[in-house]
């Protein structure tokens, strides 16, 4: 298996503006819009569905490209295999379901997508706690842990509309297996105009000092909000968006190494996610910063999303309070 290269940019998609200037949308919404756009440009883009076209936002694709839409019903294992077969014949299939359900078929993903090196894009929506009242049987909270064990599968999690569009352009032309992790909750645009997604490169959204906060997907704007709240107290955390994995090691070393504290904020179980990935890099630094994680330490539970994020200290208030406490524990 070779190293993942940076994808070719799509002329049709990369020129899109960041967001559309309207109300914030979820990355699954942006995905659904971008999917139709790339499908118009690339005939090889197809969709394999598991009875969740409305929830995963593939319905507009189905309406415009019915011959390229394969409905497998509530049978994700077969859907993954069908997608692998389509990929081996030259198509670029996007298999969309809740991330929790899709990556639940891990034996099938391991063999027919991973080991078989089939260029399937596994699209896992409803990442994290945001599905709220449906509870832990629907929450994508251990998908990263599973997907990161596969050495040839890249992980993509956009933090806003601009990044979703650009990742979709990358995924339309790249032919490697991939996992695209998408959120249900609307997200504000996090990146400045002109932002260009590059695989493995983590963009810095706030350049500060003392503490470097690493976030991914839905936790990115929340971490930014927490940092902005702390500015009133004279604190200026760095905030980094780790939007694709494996992340560039040198970039993380450079970013983490300049701070005395690293905090990873992730809408995922505490074990096996972004924190584990970054810890392997940070542990090797000569002047190692302190390392801490805010994540979901149990199975999660049902409840309104805002209550859940507050309970797990994954809202802006919780993150800000946690950072302040960390810096108090370990003064400069």
């Amino acid at each position, binding site marked *: 298996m070779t190293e993942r290269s940076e994808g070719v940019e799509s002329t049709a998609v990369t020129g899109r503006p960041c967001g559309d200037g309207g109300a914030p949308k979820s990355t699954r919404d942006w995905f659904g819009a971008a999917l139709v756009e790339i499908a118009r440009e690339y005939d090889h883009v197809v969709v394999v569905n598991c009875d969740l076209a409305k929830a995963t936002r593939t319905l507009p694709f189905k309406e415009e490209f019915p011959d*390229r839409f394969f409905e497998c*019903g509530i*049978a994700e294992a077969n859907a993954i295999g*069908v997608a*692998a077969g389509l990929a*081996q014949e030259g198509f670029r*299939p996007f298999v969309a379901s809740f991330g929790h359900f899709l990556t639940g078929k891990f034996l099938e993903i391991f063999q027919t997508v991973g080991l078989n*090196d089939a260029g399937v894009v596994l699209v896992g929506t409803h990442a994290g706690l945001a599905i709220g009242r449906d509870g832990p049987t629907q929450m994508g909270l251990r998908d990263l842990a599973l997907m990161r064990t596969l050495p040839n599968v890249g992980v993509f999690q956009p933090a806003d509309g601009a990044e979703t569009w650009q990742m979709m352009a990358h995924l339309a032309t790249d032919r490697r297996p991939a996992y695209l992790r998408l959120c249900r909750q609307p997200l504000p645009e996090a990146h400045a105009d002109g932002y260009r997604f590059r695989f493995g490169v983590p963009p810095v959204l706030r350049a500060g000092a003392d503490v470097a906060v690493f976030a991914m997907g839905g936790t990115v704007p929340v971490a930014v909000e927490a940092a902005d709240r702390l500015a009133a107290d004279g604190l200026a955390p760095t905030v980094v968006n780790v939007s694709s994995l494996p992340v560039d090691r040198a970039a993380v070393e450079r970013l983490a190494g300049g701070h005395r504290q690293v905090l990873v904020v992730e809408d995922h179980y505490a074990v096996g996610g972004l924190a584990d990935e970054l810890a392997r890099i940070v542990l090797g630094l000569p002047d190692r910063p302190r390392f801490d994680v805010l994540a979901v330490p149990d199975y999660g539970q049902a409840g309104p999303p805002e209550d859940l994020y507050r309970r797990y200290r994954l809202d802006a208030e919780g993150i800000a309070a946690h950072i302040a406490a960390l810096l108090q524990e370990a003064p400069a």
Partner: protein
Amino acid sequence: MRAERTVAGPAVDLARRADADRIARLATRCRLVLLEMIHRAGSGHAGSSLSCADIVSVLRFDQLDRPPGGPGDVFVLSKGHAAPAWYAALVVGGDLPAGEVGTLRALDSRLQGHPDRTRLGLVDVSTGALGQGLSVAVGRALARRLHGRDSTVYCLLGDGECQEGQVWEAFLYAGARRVPGLVAIIDHNGSQSDGAVADILPLYPLPEKLRAFGWHVAEVDGHDHGELRDALRRRDRDAPTVIIAHTRKGRLGPDRVLLDGSHSDLPSAAEYAAAVDYLETLLETGP
């Protein structure tokens, strides 16, 4: 229900017989090669490989159209533990150098214990954990329909493997969508790791179930090359076809079975030598 025999004149019968005899000899050579592979590796599923050696031989030496460089027919060995049968057919067919016979299951070998297409390009789909191959075969057949390519995707499954739920997801899907250009063959040897399929979890009535799932069903003697070939040639062009091939695990020839049809036992040196003697005698005296 057996597949109907072709009603044809004597000349056609003679040609058919000669062709079946040719494949029978190739299948015997495949058995010799796969047993040598497993014997030299000291590991491998001899019984499962022997039970499908005739099916694989009919596919490799009669049915599969694989022009070099072109999108030819696809073969998915869903019962991946029978990999030695496919490797042996590749050796006998001249696709794979005979020098690799001793590399089965060795470190860095192309001949992995279960087929790995990233290591061996003559493998179309990586398999091993059971139940997954038919879904990939369905995807490949769908893709070919979308491309407008006229070719066939073959998938060989074990009967024990048909206890996996995903196999029935794939049967359900392909039957409901009438996926063309798709042929599944079930190596129905009636035996699995812990005992008889009928005891572990019966599939009965298998043909009725498959028909109910919308497939064209044929049943043949899985060691009769003529029956296998006829059933494959008579497949439904517009709907998926499944051939239930009745076989015997560990079958060496008409009157000999290795290790009483064991799933994964290895032949001792003496058993291996006796099997080789038997197969070589078949080649000398057989059809």
